[in-house]
């Protein structure tokens, strides 16, 4: 699920970035530092959308660095148990398959893949129905449901299922090609 929230961060800036462009420098460093990171609490920071405020800089003892408290608005993505996501398959093996929904990695274990789909080894490992009409392989898009999340300080990993109504392959580029 996406959220638009305000976060705060203390930015350290070297004096060589001071001057007329101080604010711009601060913001671009913030983007570089924060976008794409993940915190267990808020999820993945997708994009910074605005700066709320930049506080007074504090010179750090012993170094020339100055610390600015910056409040910024950003879009974060945090997967939840029970949430339905669309994801791209990245890896298929006999244990199941891995998929990505943006920054989130999801694993679907074999027993959460419908029983009528069998694993086929080979150059392009895949899960296929007996009549061959549905195939899950690398690069294809699936709709899945999150059934468990593992949230660490800097990482979120999910386990999903496609064993439910309206879940499974939604688009297979290989089949279309």
């Amino acid at each position, binding site marked *: 699920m996406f959220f638009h929230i305000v976060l705060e961060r203390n930015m350290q800036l070297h004096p060589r970035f001071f001057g007329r462009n101080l604010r711009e420098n601060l913001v671009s460093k913030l983007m570089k530092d924060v976008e794409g990171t993940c915190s267990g609490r808020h999820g993945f920071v997708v994009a910074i959308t605005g700066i709320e405020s930049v506080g007074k800089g504090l010179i750090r003892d012993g170094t020339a660095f100055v610390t600015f408290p910056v409040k910024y608005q950003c879009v974060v993505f945090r997967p939840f148990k029970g949430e339905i996501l669309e994801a791209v398959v990245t*890896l298929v*093996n006999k244990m199941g398959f891995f998929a990505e929904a943006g920054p989130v990695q999801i694993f679907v274990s074999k027993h959460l893949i419908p029983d009528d789909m069998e694993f086929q080894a080979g150059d392009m490992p895949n899960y296929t129905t007996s009549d061959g009409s549905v195939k899950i392989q690398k690069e294809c898009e699936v709709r899945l449901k999150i059934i468990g999340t593992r949230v660490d300080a800097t990482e979120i990993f999910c386990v999903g299922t496609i064993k439910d109504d309206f879940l499974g392959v939604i688009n297979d580029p290989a089949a279309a090609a």
Partner: protein
Amino acid sequence: MEISVPVQKATVVPKPFIRLMRLLARTLYDDNNLTTLSDNQKKSAKGDSRGNIVMVLDALMRRQWVREEDLASDLKKNSKQVRKILRHFEEEHLVTRYQRKETAKRAKIYNVAVAATAHGREVDNVKLHTQSYCCLDYQHMYDTARLRLQNIKRKLKDELEDKYTLQKYGCPHCNRKYSALDALRLISMEDDAFHCERCNGVLVVECDKLSSKEAVDGGDNAKRRQRQRLQFAEALMDQINRVKDIPFPVYESFPEWEARAAMDARENGDFNTNDPFGSQGVNGSTPMPYLGETKVEVNLRDGKEDGVPSSKPMPQWMIRQGMNLTKEQRGEISQEEKVGGVSEGEVLLSDDNKPSAMGNDNDTYLKETYYAALLQQLEAAQKMNQQESTPDIQSATTCSDRQVGMKSKREDEEDAECEEGAHVSANGAGVEEEEEEEDDGVEWEEG
């Protein structure tokens, strides 16, 4: 302010309803996922000890409308704590609450009403602020029970089909366990297999599956929980079936109740026992020195008192199983009290009015109440099957029959919807209509 409401006879609660209420209250203090409470609800319920919840519920079952402050003081509890528990009950739809700004006059009316049902004491220095009153809501409770049952069923079914279970993996060499949540760390790019972090052995799929929640918890209690949930579902289903064909006990809305109780007090001039709870006066009647001088400004539109009991109820300790008594002589409460399948002695122990009248030691009282409630639960489970529910049905219908004539007088009351349900059930007919309402309730809850 003028209140014109018909006089209604008090409602006797058939025992299956009481048992159902107890079952549902259990979900408030059983921390495991017997049910599908939201996390928020779970968190808020966690703060209360099981004892407190049982105690408050027990007290409520012996009362109709009661001012929450009075309830707290009767239980010798912090009113904040009691209110918190009541709020949970309300969230769970076990209780209706009624709040209003109170003037001195209104408070007095309530006090008279309370005195008439012989529980609670006159509070002399009533402040002029918002007062809240509460009362069990059996009808709503029934809907909640059905919803809860459905949720549990769905959950059990999901588990059976293991739709939402995390795959477990084990290392055949060092026996270390992993779950699907570790997949990212276990996957090896060289072959397709998962490898043990410790010994690099190839992991194998384990057969015993746990639901994701349990895997996160550590999985120790999985079996126990599932069994508990199953037992709970069975008990719930059993109870719902018992209750299904019995008309709901419906308490009047608060203004109605207050008016009726106040009128009882005025007309009889003594604490009378029309109210099912009135028989508690036997155990310790509350002195009412102020009754003579009270001027109650309740305008009851020719609400005639019918059925002032011809004979006084007998004290509970005098009633024996084989005695041939009328309901009034039994004081009606006796049936309700036996609901849990408890002997008379225990009922006396857990009686709420007793300590206030007798000045019991606080701690002893709390313990007694708690143990009595526990005992009731245990024994109820055993005796439930043997006991006939027919007498309850009879008593419920007899008592609601009396209402039927009076009911038609009023249509414009606020709680028309709730009363509508009462009407249906009171007549003992129109079961279909009832069903419809319940279904609506369920759908609404789910949406």
